[in-house]
């Protein structure tokens, strides 16, 4: 019988799984009204105790009622153990409610397991936390669309500031925080999540809201271009670099390059290397590029600041990991070193050719490049820390080549440097090799910033 099923369920939860079964937990788990859950728990207790008087069951109750205290009539709501139930009830002048709060095998010393159980189950059901409650509120509806899209715009821009050292708590619930780590993949997932959001928003929107929605989307578009202009080339380069390691990841990602290109139209020149390398990818995943521009634009402003943040991270990581699949050759960078501020066009042109060959070859290559790095060591003679910027050649992989270089600037320093120091420095440099290299790159030439892989 369906009626008896809940008894078996409760039995399983309490005795087999040794859980603390609160009424709320049962209500969410079985999908029933809270009052039914309370009655189910009561029923179970009664039957179990009738069957076997030695049943190992401890029950807590909720007692509520009026209490005369200090001249006030106070409404008291308390969770009590069974052994204190009658005592508590007798203290109250009027009893307002009493029902089973929870059942568990063990005797609870304090009420924190109850709290933890309730907290966990509510946390997993946040989206519909009032579903099984006894009160329905007609006014509790999500805000109307014109308000919500406006919020992401200021939110998106404040994100890089707000996020700070801690990774994203800011974004609305629709965007799952883990996806922020995945860079472009995260952007797509966020967009995918936002798409169903957009769909109900659009269905809800009446004709009068349609102009506001389009106005909102044109505004983000304009913002996009501004944001993209600022980060544009770096963004493009990062896109290329990112899409490679994330090839096995979500398919929609492929749309991003094709999407980003038309939107980054002001940066046509910068796009060429992008297009060349992306063409291969686009061919592979052409069929997926059917997303509407309007949908994407809604998320651009959130993505771009996210991009910025993620891109900065990615740049570091890319240089440090041994990605043999990098499309963008490190060859432009030696050119940067030599000409600290090369004009954009020639630099791009030189990049174009290797890019195209790279694209066609599509292969693995280790390149050696000279990188400006900061070396920090303790100067024994003066007992201070010294930081020096030195060029050292480094392959795409983070490694061996750093060692020879420090010895070159070393001679003019006091040779008191113990040998122990060097392995330490090298270890330090290994770990931080990529990061200072990137920073050094940026400092050397501003174009290096735009021509990032």
């Amino acid at each position, binding site marked *: 019988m369906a009626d008896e099923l809940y008894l078996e369920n409760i039995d399983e939860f309490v005795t087999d799984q040794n859980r603390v079964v609160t009424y709320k937990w049962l209500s969410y788990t079985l999908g029933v009204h809270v009052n039914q859950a309370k*009655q189910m728990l009561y029923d179970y207790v009664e039957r179990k105790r009738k069957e076997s008087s030695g049943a190992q069951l401890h029950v807590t109750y909720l007692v509520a009622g009026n209490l005369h205290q200090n001249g006030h009539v106070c409404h008291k709501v308390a*969770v009590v153990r069974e052994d204190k139930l009658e005592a508590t009830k007798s203290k109250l002048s009027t009893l*307002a409610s009493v029902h089973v709060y929870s059942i568990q095998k063990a005797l609870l010393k304090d009420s924190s397991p109850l*709290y933890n159980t309730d907290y966990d189950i*509510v946390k997993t059901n946040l989206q519909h936390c*009032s579903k*099984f409650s006894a009160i329905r509120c007609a006014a509790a*509806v999500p805000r109307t669309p014109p308000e919500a899209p406006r919020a992401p715009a200021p939110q998106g821009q404040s994100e890089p500031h707000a996020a700070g050292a801690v990774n994203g708590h800011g*974004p609305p619930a629709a965007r799952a925080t883990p996806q922020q780590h995945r860079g472009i993949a995260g952007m797509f997932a966020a967009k995918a999540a936002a798409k169903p959001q957009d769909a109900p928003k659009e269905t809800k929107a009446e004709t009068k809201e349609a102009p506001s929605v389009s106005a909102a989307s044109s505004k983000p578009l304009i913002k996009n271009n501004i944001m993209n202009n600022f980060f544009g080339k770096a963004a493009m380069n990062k896109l290329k670099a990112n899409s490679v390691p994330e090839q096995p990841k979500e398919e929609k990602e492929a749309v991003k390059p094709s999407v980003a290109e038309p939107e980054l139209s002001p940066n046509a020149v910068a796009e060429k290397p992008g297009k060349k390398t992306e063409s291969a990818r686009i061919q592979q995943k052409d069929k997926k590029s059917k997303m509407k521009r309007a949908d994407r634009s809604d998320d651009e402003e959130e993505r771009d600041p996210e991009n910025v943040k993620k891109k900065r991270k990615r740049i570091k990581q890319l240089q440090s990991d041994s990605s043999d699949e990098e499309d963008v050759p490190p060859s432009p960078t030696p050119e940067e070193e030599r000409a600290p501020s090369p004009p954009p066009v020639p630099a791009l042109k030189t990049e174009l050719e290797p890019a195209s060959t790279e694209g066609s070859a599509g292969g693995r290559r280790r390149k050696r490049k000279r990188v400006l790095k900061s070396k920090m060591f303790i100067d024994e003679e003066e007992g201070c820390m010294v930081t020096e910027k030195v060029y050292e050649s480094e392959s795409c992989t983070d490694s061996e080549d750093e060692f020879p270089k420090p010895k070159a600037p070393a001679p003019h320093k006091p040779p008191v440097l113990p040998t122990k120091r060097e392995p330490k420095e090298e270890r330090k440099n290994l770990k931080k090799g990529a990061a200072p290299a990137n920073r050094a790159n940026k400092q050397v030439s501003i174009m290096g910033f735009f021509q990032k892989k």
Partner: protein
Amino acid sequence: MSHAMFSEQAAPTAQGLLAPPSAEPPTFPRVPVSGYSDCSQPFQLGERSFSRQYAHIYAVRLAGMRPGLERCARSRWGNDIALRKLSELQAGEKCCVVGTLFKAMQLQPSILQEISEEHNLVPQPPLPKYIQPSDELMLEDELQRIKLEGAIDVQRLVTGTILAVYGSEQDDGRFLVEDHCFAGLPLPLPWNGPSSNRFVLLASGLGLGSVSGEALLSTQLLVDVVTGQLGAEGEQSCAAHITRVILAGNLLSQNTQSRDTINKAKYLTKKTQAASVEAVKMLDEILLQLCTSVPVDVMPGEFDPTNYTLPQQPLHRCMLPLASTYATLRLVTNPYQANLDGVRFLGTSGQNISDIFKYSSMDDYLEILEWTLQAGHISPTAPDTLGCYPFYKSDPFILTECPHVYFCGNAPHFQSKLLQGKEGQRVLLVTVPDFSATQTACLINLCDLTCQPITFSGFGADSEDRDMEVGH
């Protein structure tokens, strides 16, 4: 009669859930809000400029309250009384002067003294009260000041109060006070309250993010009662009459302030997270649960992430991504003023009252609350000892209309009193206790302006029967 209203309606079905599952259990619709309007515009700051001095706020305060005080003085001491400015005083003449009080206190913390190298002073540790017998009162008006003595309680009064004194100037240059009066209760507002039971739940000092988790279950019980999860059917149907929840400040605990990160170098704190981040996440979840079921007004308090000076601006909705998607969430200022179902509410998160507590001999929060109403000003000690925005056009803390419910949050105990004024004012004064310490919130019945405390408790290892310290 209505004190017990909340429980007595529920009594008949109290044990109804101690039974096998019945058929479809009832759900109760939340009583809708019949009228709401936010009257906190004076407390909302737009463009803020701190380039002005604080002298202006005192000037507009005096100018704003002078007419009312002159009226009070005339009605009290006769129509033919001489109203003088300090510059017009003549020795020996009995007259009435309206001015601002200044209390010179030896123990008052002074930043200038602390940083003064000549004095070589160790900064004074915070004291519960800074009053001393040697304190002196001065009366200031637009141009001059004069020392007061006589029938005036120096210990009780605080700086920034506008009052009228009746007496005469002595030969030694001091003013001998024979009587004094305050602005009195402001003008009454018409009553448009509901005719049936409507409750508003007032709570403050949730104190999320604190080290101890004792109050967490109580907070959850509070949410569950309001959202109708807890309780038997009768209680749930009563809870459906709660039309609003107001959280009066200190949603975060003082522990989230993490002062030590301020002293650390920034590069060492690179990957550390502010303690308030976790607490705000927890707050967001709690607010989400409430917002899906009842309109909630959230006021910031002393320890909440908003500006420090009064009036505190609303918390930013970006901190509460889950809850702010609901239209039922309203993030409001501190102080907060609104019309709820025809009843005018005015209240603060308690900083004004606790500041007066420090500089006055008054010990009782309810007494201080009533005194601010009588003095016609929400926070006279601002900006002297309580941070305040340098207003210059008008002082928004002057009370011009008498609210129906006047509350302050984060009080040590729950207290309430229905005050009747001479001109027909009816005010319910409520000191909302700090929930993290007392696990007590307040239920106000809008129908008849009564207030009932509601306490929550779990059980602990030490004792089950923790009698809540309630009232008086």
